[in-house]
């Protein structure tokens, strides 16, 4: 198409799209106007009188054709000229970014490895693309994977990068070449970026600097045959005995309709195994697996589908997640405003769970409290905590039927802060003094709650109703709404459960909230369990008054685990992921030997206010037992965040113990995380060509996307579209073949028409 265009218009479309059309006629304008008017009149008058058999319409057509021919001549006489801005040869720079990651060794479109293109085009001085670029620009070649570096020639690349950080590489190039005229950046890649950074972060500065990015996409749009286990989302740390429910997305091509096993293993122990039936090619299959983590410590959970014959990539058949299994006892405060059976049955449901300590503050009468499971005689002796320090000791807070007016405004704000700032879990139960009926509308607590509080019922007993509880689609797959240890076993149980009672008619959740359980009752559907993220924590609503019915009801067998499982799951979910004062993590779950490993720590004081003036150090215990102490520095970018980087030298598990102090002897807290050091398979996931990402990058910066076979025009394109030092070039268009073609069409057309009408 480009060739055809260039044949008719002398130049490539790019020059027209980037250039400006002007007229450079040396004839005076008056003469041209006279010519135009005179020629036009002549053309029209010459067909004014009837000639031969020509009708009026025929004469009009012939006059128009003659006018057209005259207009073409006039256009040529105007001397149309294309004005382009072009970079000055060898005065500008072009950066070439070459993907140096492992995925570049995978097969490309022609069956050869993807990096073969780089070797051919850029690998030596004789490389076609490199030569074309060097003819016009000063070329700087960079390699990038997890990091980016300048290289002299592309043959220096060894394609063993375990991670691809395109965003970081673009930033690096832009900064390094910020002092020279940069015409453009050429990115040669398969488009994979597993850095987790947003591409937009790089695009905006490039736009601001007017640096276009030209991308060359390598690899196939889809790998076939291939099976890939998708990215998994799991909590970083859980309590011992916690059941995890994971939705595993398995994508495949070439195995449509096949059924294969999905195995979940903890080290060498199989936790669970399920069968996965694939749909059509390219259609992802979502399967839900559930397993319990009983072994304490840093666990590496592996999910895998057996490698099948002929697969293009075998490394992406398995995924691993790193989970820290803790044996702590998490404190949950349950404040119940009226004596009712939720307390006794909830305590009973949690009695076997050694990892959850439910501290009950039972208000029995006006200003009279009964405390259960408190740590000492002083705890909660004055009722509900009055300071953030006292409240923030707990990881989760359950508020039963207690009216909002019981709390001071500061206590209500504290409860909201407990969720948003401390990151705790809040659960409000139904009752005559809960939600709108408890006067929570308009309070900070209502802000945190996931449900919309309507007008309160004047008499909550009057709106008492029993609702049949069912999980929503989201609830079926959510760990907080499980009633059986095994997911399959729960399927038929929901229908058999007795209805629960409500005194708060809640029908709407806030935007962003998720309903996990809903109830069908005489007033229609109602929310039974919903939650939302609120700041650093999560808030949930369970507006039922007697979940204990699921334990005591006549239809429930004595050994039925519904009630226990429900509460254990709900509370474990509520306390999972709740941060402590010192919350340490590693940037990546695993790194390779020699790769930079970054440790990050968020630090907060007893009121969970960020601390920037602490002394923080990380003690690294290598797999061989050797110990290294690293000071951690405040990152400045974010309050309370400290970081340190090291390069592990050994394969295996590194224990990272972080300790924070302030002043001479104020101990702020400690945390331990584990870092797995070993070969990474990250590059083999989503390894097909990410065309959309590369197209977006070029489109938004003013560049172009190229297939490997189209790169012949790349150097010239940069010349006309790139920035840097430019000069103005003018190109005559009066001799375009297209004008001649038009002239022939008009004159020939008129002659042929006259002939057809017997005028010739």
């Amino acid at each position, binding site marked *: 198409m480009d060739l055809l265009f260039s044949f008719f218009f002398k130049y490539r479309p790019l020059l027209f799209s980037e250039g400006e059309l002007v007229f450079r006629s040396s004839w005076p304008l008056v003469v041209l106007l006279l010519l135009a008017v005179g020629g036009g009149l002549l053309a029209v008058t010459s067909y004014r009188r009837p000639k031969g058999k020509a009708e009026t319409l025929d004469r009009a057509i012939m006059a128009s054709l003659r006018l057209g021919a005259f207009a073409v001549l006039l256009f040529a006489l105007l001397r149309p000229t294309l004005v382009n801005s072009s970079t000055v040869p060898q005065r500008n720079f072009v950066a070439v970014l070459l993907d140096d990651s492992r995925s570049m060794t995978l097969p490309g479109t022609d069956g050869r490895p993807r990096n073969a293109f780089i070797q051919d085009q850029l690998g030596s001085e004789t490389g076609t693309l490199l030569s074309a670029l060097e003819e016009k620009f000063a070329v700087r070649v960079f390699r990038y994977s997890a990091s980016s570096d300048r290289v002299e020639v592309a043959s220096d690349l060894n394609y063993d990068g375990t991670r691809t950080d395109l965003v970081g590489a673009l930033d690096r190039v832009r900064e390094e070449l910020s002092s020279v005229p940069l015409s453009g950046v050429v990115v040669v890649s398969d488009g994979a970026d597993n850095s987790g950074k947003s591409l937009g972060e790089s695009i905006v500065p490039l736009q601001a600097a007017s640096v276009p990015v030209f991308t060359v996409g390598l690899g196939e749009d889809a790998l076939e045959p291939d099976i890939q286990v998708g990215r998994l989302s799991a909590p970083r740390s859980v309590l011992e005995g916690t059941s995890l429910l994971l939705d595993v997305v398995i994508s495949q091509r070439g195995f449509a309709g096949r059924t294969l096993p999905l195995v979940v293993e903890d080290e060498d122990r199989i936790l669970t195994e399920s069968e996965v039936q694939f749909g059509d090619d390219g259609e992802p299959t979502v399967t839900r697996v559930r397993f319990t983590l009983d072994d304490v410590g840093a666990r590496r959970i592996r999910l895998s589908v057996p490698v099948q014959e002929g697969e293009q990539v075998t490394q992406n058949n398995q995924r691993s997640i790193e989970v820290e299994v803790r044996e702590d006892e998490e404190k949950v405060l349950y404040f119940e405003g*009226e004596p009712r059976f939720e307390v*006794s049955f909830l305590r009973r449901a949690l009695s076997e769970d050694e990892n959850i300590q439910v501290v009950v503050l039972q208000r029995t009468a006006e200003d009279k409290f009964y405390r259960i499971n408190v740590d000492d005689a002083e705890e909660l002796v004055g009722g509900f905590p009055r300071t953030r320090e006292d409240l923030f000791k707990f990881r989760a807070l359950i508020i039963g039927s207690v009216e909002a007016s019981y709390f001071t405004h500061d206590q209500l704000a504290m409860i909201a802060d407990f969720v948003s700032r401390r990151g705790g879990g809040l659960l409000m139960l139904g009752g005559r003094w809960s939600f709108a009926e408890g006067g929570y509308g308009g309070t900070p607590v209502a802000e945190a709650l996931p449900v919309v509080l309507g007008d309160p019922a004047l008499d909550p*007993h009057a709106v*008492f109703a029993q609702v049949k509880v069912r999980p929503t689609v989201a609830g079926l797959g959510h760990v907080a709404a499980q009633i059986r240890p095994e997911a399959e076993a729960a399927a038929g149980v929901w229908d058999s459960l007795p209805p629960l009672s409500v005194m708060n008619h809640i029908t709407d959740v806030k935007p962003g909230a998720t309903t996990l359980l809903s109830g069908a009752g005489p007033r229609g559907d109602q929310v039974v369990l919903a939650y939302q993220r609120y700041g650093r924590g999560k808030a949930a609503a369970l507006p039922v008054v007697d979940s204990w019915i699921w*334990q*005591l009801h006549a239809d429930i067998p004595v050994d039925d685990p519904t009630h226990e499982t429900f509460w254990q799951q709900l509370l474990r979910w509520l306390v999972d992921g709740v941060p402590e004062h010192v919350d340490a993590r590693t940037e990546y779950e695993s790194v390779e030997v020699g790769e930079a490993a970054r440790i990050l720590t968020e630090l907060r004081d007893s009121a969970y206010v960020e601390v920037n003036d602490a002394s923080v150090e990380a003690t690294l215990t290598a797999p061989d037992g050797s110990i290294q102490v690293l000071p951690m520095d405040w990152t400045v970018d974010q309050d309370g965040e400290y970081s340190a980087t090291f390069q592990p030298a050994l394969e295996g598990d590194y224990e990272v113990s972080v300790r924070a102090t302030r002043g001479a002897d104020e101990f702020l807290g400690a945390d331990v995380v584990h870092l797995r050091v070993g070969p990474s398979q990250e590059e083999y996931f989503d390894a097909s060509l990410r065309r959309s990402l590369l197209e977006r990058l070029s489109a938004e910066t003013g560049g172009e996307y190229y297939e490997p076979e189209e790169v012949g025009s790349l150097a010239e394109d940069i010349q006309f579209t790139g920035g840097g030092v430019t000069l103005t070039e003018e190109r005559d268009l009066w001799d375009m073949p297209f004008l001649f073609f038009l002239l022939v069409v008009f004159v020939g057309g008129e002659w042929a028409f006259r002939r057809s009408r017997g005028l010739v």
Partner: protein
Amino acid sequence: MSRGILLLGLASVVGAVGLADGGSVLVTDEAFLAPGLTASPFTGGPASLQENDGPAYNGQFTYIRIRYGGELRDFSARDFGGRGWGRGGPMWAHDYPDAEINFSKIVNATTFIDAYMGPRGGRVLTLDDPELFNYPIATIIEAGYWTPSDEDIANLRAYLLKGGFLIADDIRDERRFEFDRFFSHMRLVLPEYQFQLVPDDHEIFNTFFSIPEPRSLALPYGRWNTPAPIYLGIFEDNDPVNGRLMVIMNGNQDIQEYWEFSDRGYYPIDLSNEAYKYGINYMIYAFTH
């Protein structure tokens, strides 16, 4: 004001209300029995009677009295209307319904318990009634005269193992058979468990009111040979320290007798107040354990 004084005042209120009404609610045949009810063995009870007896489950705490044994002829206006000793009537119905009416008033006035305050103070249910499983606290009166059926035994076992709490009151050993009968029947219900002494310092005597010497409250009546009050219980896992109390037996005691007459002046008001403390403590214990 101490809790005791508060309670004293409230007990007086209960009395005043009762007197102002011309005494407690008198149950008549018309009020209690459905029309056309015929004499029949009273195991399970006529459905119409159960339907009319108290509210359907409504989420509130409702006082539950276990009905057992006896013939329908035992139900008469005379039996229910009669007062005091030797008034006859079915054993399960002793102190009914004034005890629960008065107790519910006290519970509502003294605590934040959302207690049902209907005309009979609660509901009367049989052990084979599935409705029982909507109420985690149940009381059985004159339990020494209770003769359970196999179905009763199975249901009570399920009720207790699932978290129910049974209060056995007005069980006296002066005739040397009431304890034994109750024990033997409970052995059928929970053969793996045994009755044990509820220690004086047990949590149940301190949940709301402090009752430092629980055995000091005298039986409201009795013979020369009635033994001293004793509180026995069945604990989960037979563990009196950490185990939940599933059953408490007010041995040689009749707490509800005090409640029944607390508005009539038969017994000293401070003793009636003490008796209410036991009931409220039992409730708070069951709500929290």
